[in-house]
């Protein structure tokens, strides 16, 4: 297996799918001449030309809608949001148009499209540029929502997303783009909706997704040294959620910590807790504990930002607490 960055894995997926199907095109701000604000589309303009790799004005609502319209007549747009913070302006098109078109039309108009871009916080970008939207998007029937945490998942799931005939929300991590990992050689895809146990363990489950997968792995490493073995379940897709995988892990460990990047109230973690108490009520030896961002807008100051974010120390404390070691 080759070792690639998360960014290069995404670029490979885009290149392969653009080559495979000429109905696929990439549209967004700075995706073409600038090679992408985060260089995910590097080289694609030269390779595929200006009708396939399309720079737009700063009009998230407008070009998201253009993607929807083009999908109604059979194209397969990939709409890039420079970051999901700006996608707030486009949610009407994602939620009221893309997610409902098939239903409102009685099955006549599927939406074979992808909305993608970096989600969540990076470093010191402060309140308006540091938001994680997976819980909002997972709330919406008619969408699929993917949150890959590793280069291999990023590539395999993006390819599946592009081939899927439904509107797929694909949430990347700005802080993940430079992370490296092994990626299978050649053609492969990863099924949407299937979680992966990234680490086997018996003492406690950590259910997580996206950017927090790396954190969970650090936690598992650290705790292993203390003789605590953690089962790390990476949901990978948050809509639909792989309830079975969650249940299997918790039935094994009888303890769970749910780790996510975003805010607490009505976050993904709350939904995972709901599934756990429903499916594993009699298996639980302790209440499920959640780890998430502080319930505040993201501050700019380095020290405050660090304090606000979900991280390994907080997750380690949570694991010890559910194990009554705290």
């Amino acid at each position, binding site marked *: 297996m080759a070792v690639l960055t998360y960014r290069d894995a995404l670029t490979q997926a885009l290149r392969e799918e653009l080559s495979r199907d000429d109905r696929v095109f990439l549209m967004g701000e700075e995706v073409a001449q600038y090679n992408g604000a985060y260089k995910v589309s590097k080289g694609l303009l030269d390779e595929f030309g200006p009708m396939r790799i399309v720079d737009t004005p700063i009009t998230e609502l407008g070009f998201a809608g253009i993607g929807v319209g083009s999908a109604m007549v059979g194209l397969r747009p990939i709409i890039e949001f420079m970051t999901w913070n700006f996608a707030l302006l486009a949610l009407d098109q994602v939620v009221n148009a893309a997610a409902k078109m098939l239903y409102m*039309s009685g099955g006549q108009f599927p939406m074979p499209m992808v909305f993608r871009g970096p989600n969540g916080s990076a470093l010191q970008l402060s309140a308006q540029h540091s938001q994680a939207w997976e819980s909002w998007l997972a709330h919406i029937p008619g969408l699929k929502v993917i949150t890959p945490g590793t280069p291999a998942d990023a590539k395999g799931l993006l390819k599946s997303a592009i081939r899927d005939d439904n509107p797929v929300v694909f949430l990347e991590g700005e802080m993940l783009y430079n992370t490296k990992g092994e990626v299978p050689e050649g053609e492969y895809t990863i099924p949407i909706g299937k979680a992966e146990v990234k680490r086997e363990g018996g003492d406690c489950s950590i259910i997580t997704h996206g950017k927090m997968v790396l954190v969970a792995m650090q936690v598992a490493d650290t705790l292993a040294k203390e003789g605590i073995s953690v089962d790390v379940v990476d949901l990978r897709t948050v809509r639909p959620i792989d309830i079975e995988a969650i249940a299997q892990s918790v039935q094994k460990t009888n303890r769970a910590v749910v780790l996510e990047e975003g805010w607490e109230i009505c976050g993904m973690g709350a939904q995972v807790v709901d599934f756990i108490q429903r499916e594993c009520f009699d298996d639980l030896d302790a209440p499920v504990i959640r780890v998430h961002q502080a319930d505040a807008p993201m501050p700019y100051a380095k020290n405050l930002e660090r304090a606000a974010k979900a991280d390994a120390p907080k997750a380690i404390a949570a694991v010890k607490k559910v194990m009554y070691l705290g």
Partner: protein
Amino acid sequence: MTEVLGRGETRKPKRGMSNKKNGEAPDASDELALRKDLLRSMLLQRRFEERCAEAYALGKIGGFCHLYIGQEAISAGTCSVLRPDDYIVTSYRDHGQALARGMTPRSVMAELFGRVDGCSKGKGGSMHLFDKSVGFLGGHGIVGGHIPLAAGVAWAIKYRKGDQVCVCFFGEAAVNIGAFHEALNMAALWGLPAVFVIENNRYGMGTAISRATANEDVAARAAAYRMGGESVDAQDVFAVRDAMGRAVELARKESKPTLIEMRTFRFMGHSMSDAASGTYRSKEELEDSMKRDPILLLHDLMRSEGQLSDGEFAKLDEEQKAICQDAWDFADASPEPPLEHLMTDILVDTTS
């Protein structure tokens, strides 16, 4: 860029020139057939929606229901210059356009009744009519939200190097919303084969255009995007045909978008719960506007030129009423959707 006509003037149309063969003069029989067909289309829309009002009162139609009565020349004139493979994207006020485009009255009425034989299987209702077979891409409920969709359809046409055109209808109040602005800029910037049709019936719900729009000359907005703009007396079906004919050709041949203001009137309330007059517009204003009923105008013209006897008109009208009765009966007989349908059409399970 085509000229922008000021508020007062409207271009004199060549009365009912069928533009099917450009330049070449049409013969008289074509001409008569065209006029009859435009009259038929407008009558069908009118009679159909009269029945809708009746069905709504009986509780057979529910939810929001926005009638098109008074605006039928826009849909009839527009559809008369479109090709079968062209596309239409419109708002919630979509019954008339759906019928003019050739959706069956049965499938539309069944949809309004919320029945399984409706065009959208009863899941969409009045605001969400769709028919892929005639390129009718909805029926959308968020003001302005469908304008970028139309630009996207036009983008797809250009992407495929096709020569179809996408026509987008929306009300005059939609010109103030961001989606309109963003979509028109991109359509002009990229040269997309679309025609953006403002149906200016002078009111957005209860708000007169002068209370919502700083520059009432909405066609003049085209200039902000270096796009052609034009204002049309849309109670005159031939004026509509003429302007749309040119705009559609410009889109088809040169892949250039146009913004057209159709000056029209809504003879009914905004929706079924809104009175036609008395609150935000006077009875006089409404009655004045009704003197310019597009059906009346065409009927008078044909009568004055001896092209349509009262008997012929009555016959044509009866035919439309019969079609609407048939649609009603069909819809009434159609079953409610089976409960399993609640959870279908949310996602497809196909991939490419």
